[in-house]
């Protein structure tokens, strides 16, 4: 299949694998993008050609081996090709979160000494032009979408199409260029630098190699039997390790098709259209979907509600067994079959999940109800565990042995140890090569034996399953010596549909208290059904009825905690409902939407104080940034409520 003009696909780097795909499965669709109303498609052969042209164009513009290439934008084919283009001529792509604030961006641009950036559209160009003076090395900004770019005459700005054009000229002059460059690439070269959004420190660039990407992708492929006729929807940020592994490396290694949604508003529609076979989503997405299901079913006719309730009951007691391949009585099998016709099948279809062979979630804990809901309606949802530094390759739940309280068993080639304070230490084929230009951090993160310190506390049970409790550094103690695992509590709280975010305090204090963020949709819907009027978020959050509702939730958590020896002492004593949503723009959350607990504790110090001094209300005024960049303040008198605590082991009786 190889013709003389095509570069020799050695296959030990991601970029060379693309050319190998072009040779082996050239006509097969590699990537699609919903654009102009239909799914525009490119075959592997076309992709290889595009990559070649872009790489040559970059080279023609002075991009050389060892240069880093910033990539910013939504998931777009041309941006994915940018990864490959830079890799094929020995560069390293550095994807950035497009909603990152200017300071973060400037930091990364300077840290990675970025000279070239490929961005999606005018919005990104404007952003980069704004920070251009502070980014010393940045000299070339390439944009994909020409919309609105007509009058930009800045010398640094050029169009993707022009670069490609340049590339085609360059190629006619040096037809062997790409081939030669590809051959110069080594499998142990760094293939990508992913910046982690540190909760406390400046971002660190995680350097991953071609070898680790390929080995991890092969490991995953073997573990869950990926085939090249699969489909995935790539809608998670390209700068996130999960997307890089799944939508880029995995697609290249396995040869399945990547689909890019039309826009962020149409992701759900596009998901339904594509009906992916492999799917990854953080628990938050699954949770939103379930909330939508619940809300939509509220308005259904009684017959449908009955049918839904009835068969969801069947799914609850039978679905998991069927999914796990355990024996089920004939009656239940028939009932489940009927349910599949009337409820589960249509439901999966409406969620765009009819064709899913395996779905993953990870990055945060998933609620047990949520988890079993999806599994019981026939979606093979599994948890996985990993970090950017391990290329998300540590543990996965194996088929037939998926347990809600564990993140699965170690993947092939992975070695796990438990260190101090229960910290999980990992050796994985996906392990980072180093932190970019940060040997200190590298040394700190990797032990002498080559284990990566995950910073998570957990243990391996007798069946070999890994269980995670909390961040190792977050595990604290109350004044009476009781163990306090804040994230564990917060996750338990967040499993309620009414609670969007929770922040628990208790380390070094007498009791556990918590901030709550309500889930506007669910609570609003609830309020409407109660006939409760409200004028907006602040008003709704302050309603005494809402407080009562959440008090119930919290007391239920307390009841659960009362069942467990070690944690029963860390029940929640007092809580308040925040008047605003915690927001990444206000630095209260990380870009991956994890709570920055310390920052929040400091910012809302008054409230924390009020929680512990027994006040009934507390006045707070907060600065907020709006979406358009303006800022303002919102203020409110927040009520503080007490929750009932249950003595150990009386959880059941109550």
């Amino acid at each position, binding site marked *: 299949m190889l013709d003389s003009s095509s570069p020799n696909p050695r296959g030990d780097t991601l970029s060379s694998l693309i050319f190998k795909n072009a040779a082996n499965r050239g006509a097969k669709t590699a990537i699609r993008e919903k*654009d102009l109303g239909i799914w525009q498609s490119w075959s592997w052969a076309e992709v290889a050609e595009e990559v070649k042209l872009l790489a040559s164009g970059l080279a023609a513009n002075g991009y050389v081996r060892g240069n880093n290439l910033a990539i910013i934008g939504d998931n777009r084919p041309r941006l994915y090709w940018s990864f490959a283009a830079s890799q094929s001529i020995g560069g390293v792509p550095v994807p950035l979160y497009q909603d990152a604030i200017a300071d973060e961006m400037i930091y990364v641009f300077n840290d990675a000494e970025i000279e070239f950036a490929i961005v999606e559209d005018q919005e990104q160009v404007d952003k980069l032009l704004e920070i251009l003076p502070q980014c010393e090395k940045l000299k070339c900004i390439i944009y994909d979408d020409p919309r609105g770019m007509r009058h930009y005459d800045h010398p640094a700005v050029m169009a993707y199409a022009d670069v490609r054009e340049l590339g085609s000229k360059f190629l006619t002059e040096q037809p062997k260029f790409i081939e030669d460059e590809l051959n110069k690439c080594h499998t142990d070269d760094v293939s990508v630098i992913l910046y982690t959004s540190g909760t406390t420190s400046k971002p660190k660039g995680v350097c991953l190699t071609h070898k680790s990407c390929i080995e991890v992708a092969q490991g995953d492929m073997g573990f869950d039997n990926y085939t090249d006729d699969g489909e995935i929807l790539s809608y998670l940020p390209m700068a996130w390790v999960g997307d890089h592994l799944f939508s880029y490396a995995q697609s290249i290694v396995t040869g399945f098709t990547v689909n890019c949604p039309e826009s962020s*508003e149409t992701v759900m529609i596009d998901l339904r259209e594509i009906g992916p076979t492999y799917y990854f989503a953080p628990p938050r997405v699954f949770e939103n979907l379930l909330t939508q299901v619940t809300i939509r079913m509220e308005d259904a006719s009684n017959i449908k509600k009955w049918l839904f309730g009835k068969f969801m009951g069947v799914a609850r007691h039978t679905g998991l067994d069927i999914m796990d391949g355990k024996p089920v009585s004939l009656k239940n099998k028939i009932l489940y079959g009927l349910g599949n016709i009337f409820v589960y099948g249509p439901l999966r279809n409406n969620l765009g999940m009819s064709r899913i062979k395996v779905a993953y979630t990870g990055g945060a804990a998933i609620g047990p109800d949520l988890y079993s809901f999806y599994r019981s309606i026939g979606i093979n949802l599994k948890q996985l565990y990993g970090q950017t530094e391990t290329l998300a390759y540590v543990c996965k739940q194996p088929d037939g042995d998926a347990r809600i309280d564990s993140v699965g068993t170690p993947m092939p080639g992975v070695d796990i140890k438990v260190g101090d304070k229960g910290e999980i230490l990992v050796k994985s084929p996906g392990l980072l090569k180093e932190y970019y230009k940060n040997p200190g951090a590298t040394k700190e993160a990797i032990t002498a034996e080559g284990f990566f310190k995950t910073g998570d506390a957990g243990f391996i049970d007798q069946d070999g399953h890994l269980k995670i409790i909390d961040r190792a550094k977050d595990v604290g103690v109350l004044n009476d010596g009781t163990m306090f695992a804040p994230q564990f509590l917060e996750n338990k709280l967040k499993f309620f549909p009414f609670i969007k975010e929770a922040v628990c305090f208790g380390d070094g204090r007498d009791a556990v208290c918590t901030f709550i963020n309500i889930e506007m949709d669910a609570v609003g819907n609830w309020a409407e059904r109660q006939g409760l009027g409200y004028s907006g978020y602040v008003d709704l959050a302050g309603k005494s009825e809402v407080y009562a509702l959440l008090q119930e939730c919290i007391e239920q958590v307390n009841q659960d905690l009362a069942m467990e020896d070690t944690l029963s002492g860390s029940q929640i004593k007092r809580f308040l409902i925040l008047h605003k949503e915690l927001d990444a723009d206000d630095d209260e959350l990380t870009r991956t939407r994890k709570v920055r607990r310390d920052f929040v504790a400091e910012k809302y110090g008054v409230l924390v104080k009020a929680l512990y001094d027994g006040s009934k209300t507390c006045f707070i005024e907060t600065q907020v940034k709006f979406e358009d960049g303006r800022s303002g303040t919102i203020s409110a008198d927040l009520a503080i409520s007490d929750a009932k605590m249950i003595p150990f082991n009386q959880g059941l009786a109550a």
Partner: protein
Amino acid sequence: MNDNDRKLGPTLLKADNISLAFGGVKALTDISFEVKEREVLAIIGPNGAGKSSMLNVINGVYHPNAGSVTYKGTVRQQMKPHEAAKQGIARTFQNIALFKGMSVLDNIMTGRTLKMSAGFLAQCLYVGRARNEEIEHRKKVEEIIDFLQIQSIRKTPVGRLPYGLQKRVELGRALAAEPTLLLLDEPMAGMNIEEKEDMSRFILDVNDEFGTTIVLIEHDMGVVMDLSDRIVVLDYGKKIGDGTPAEIRNNKEVIDAYLGVSD
């Protein structure tokens, strides 16, 4: 604004002494003005000043009782609306005039009617030219949908859309004809600030990207001052001002008649 590097072309449209009356009620009296190629001209004035009537004269819905319109160098007294469309004049309406029973896609597709030529028999059988044409024009329409960022509603019946989006679809339908001259009758009426900002951007982009000449009627003075190269002020069917936004802002007669009393 990129006013400086935008080159206005020669005169595209010239209204000469237009007068129009309905059964004795004078709607327009002796109005004259010109529009240059690639210009954005705003017509302002209090309600009932004859602004919409002026647009209606330009695209042939009303026939003036006196005066003439010169368009692309051709003088005419009367013209049917569909002839105006053929000449590259498209417009939107004060009260949305979308085709309620059709989807967004189909509505914009109607804007391409004049560019289609498949024969009747081909259409019956949906073969050859008829089908290729549908596909070819669908692509054009999708570009407009993309331009106006209404991808998520392309197959929604327009009747179900909120007001602001309907206005956008109507603009899309007008754009589908790839007009030389675009007449916009209060494109931002009834919109909130955010929608107005979006619409202003679209209008500027249309002018900028496609070089379309635009004549628009608008009440929001902020928008008018930002968008237009030149402003014509009407009052009771008479022209009382004509000049750049800065000139209009300082025109005493205009201030007395209009700017002073309205916001």
